[in-house]
């Protein structure tokens, strides 16, 4: 056996890829070759050193985050792939949606079945609970996700998004940056942390939906505003 073959077997042996007979042959060579003996020890040392490069475990909230992302994806697919018969209301619904500024992506029901739409603006202020990144954050994510999933299950949610809490501007003649944690840098005040677009029979029903949100328990506020639908095309 030559030195190159010996070292190749040593490496394969470290990776558990060498047969016993090969290893014995390599060991015999190492015992007789000082250079390969030294190289073999160094390779084992390098393999051992590499093994100390231990990765941490996945973050504790990764499960909750995945559940949220899957729910978002599912809802998005439900919106874009309606399971009901598409024609003829799909074209009309897309038109109405586009006029309303939603690009047709949030359409689920034919126009005749659609209920009024309300915008729930979730606001947070300096007194709202800071979720941080620990177990509280995980619990809050789970509770918000559950609330949202329930709206999806009931078929009332048309769209929802969180807003980046650390970036943004508030324009009031000049401009005010939004700092980390979403607090405006001009000294407090509330900021919008996300929104939900829901269908409800009337303002009372929309309020009932909003009151089930965990956002209120965590010190946030919810502004409920009816969406003004574009006028329907007149009939002759």
């Amino acid at each position: 056996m030559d030195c190159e073959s010996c070292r190749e077997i040593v490496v394969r042996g470290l990776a558990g890829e060498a047969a016993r007979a090969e290893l014995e042959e390599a060991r015999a060579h190492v015992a007789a070759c000082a250079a390969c003996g030294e190289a073999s020890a160094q390779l084992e040392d390098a393999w051992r050193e590499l093994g100390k490069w231990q990765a941490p475990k996945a973050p504790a909230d990764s499960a909750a985050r995945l559940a949220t992302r899957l729910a978002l994806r599912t809802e998005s697919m439900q919106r874009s792939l309606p399971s009901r018969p598409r024609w003829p209301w799909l074209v009309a619904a897309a038109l109405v949606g586009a006029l309303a500024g939603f690009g047709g992506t949030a359409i689920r029901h034919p126009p005749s079945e659609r209920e009024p739409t309300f915008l729930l603006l979730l606001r947070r202020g300096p007194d709202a609970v800071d979720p941080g990144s620990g177990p509280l954050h995980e619990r809050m994510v789970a509770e918000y996700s559950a609330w949202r999933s329930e709206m999806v299950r009931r078929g009332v949610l048309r769209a929802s998004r969180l807003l980046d809490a650390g970036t943004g501007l508030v324009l009031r003649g000049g401009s005010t940056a939004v700092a980390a944690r979403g607090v405006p840098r001009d000294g407090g005040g509330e900021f919008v942390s996300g929104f939900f677009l829901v269908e409800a029979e009337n303002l009372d029903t929309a309020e009932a939906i909003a009151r089930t949100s965990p956002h209120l328990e965590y010190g946030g506020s919810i502004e409920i505003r009816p969406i003004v639908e574009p006028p329907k095309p007149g009939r002759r």
Partner: protein
Amino acid sequence: MTDFRSESLHPGPSPPDRDLQLRLRAGDEEALSVLFARHRDDVFALCWRLAGASIADDLLQETFLRVWLYRASLTGRARFSTWLYVVARNVCMDYLSRRARDRSLNEDPPAPEKTGEPSWTPNAERRVVVQELLAELPLEVREALVLSRFHGLSYREIGEISGCSAGAVKVRIHRALERLRTAMKNVEATRGL
């Protein structure tokens, strides 16, 4: 909402991956949650070592989103973990390609991202040597080394995941370990040991 946090959603022994992947293919979210709980640390570790600590969790999420979206391509012939590694590896490669493309637009690109602050050794020089070498290794070489050393995969399995032959994997690992050996030897020589 499906609970992705615990593996054992119901009393009794946890079903093997083989059964779970069939249920997953049929659209069973609970099967996904069990597989996630079972494999998330391995996938996270792979992403952590290939792409970096700061992005590893996002890539873990993206991996399992793709697992869900592409579940129809599960045939049941291959081991689920091998298929999962293929998905995770592709997610990492996509991310690294995007990052490289973004950096190519900069005149002064930043140094390769370190894959996290290791805490394994009191010997700082050896630690730095290993970390720098790993950051410099071509991605396919680092991938082969990581999958072999930390995930215990065979050369054949690594080849399946990386889309190359077992022989190519053997060459990559051999060269990587030789480079590491040489680098560590130089450190020892510098210290006069």
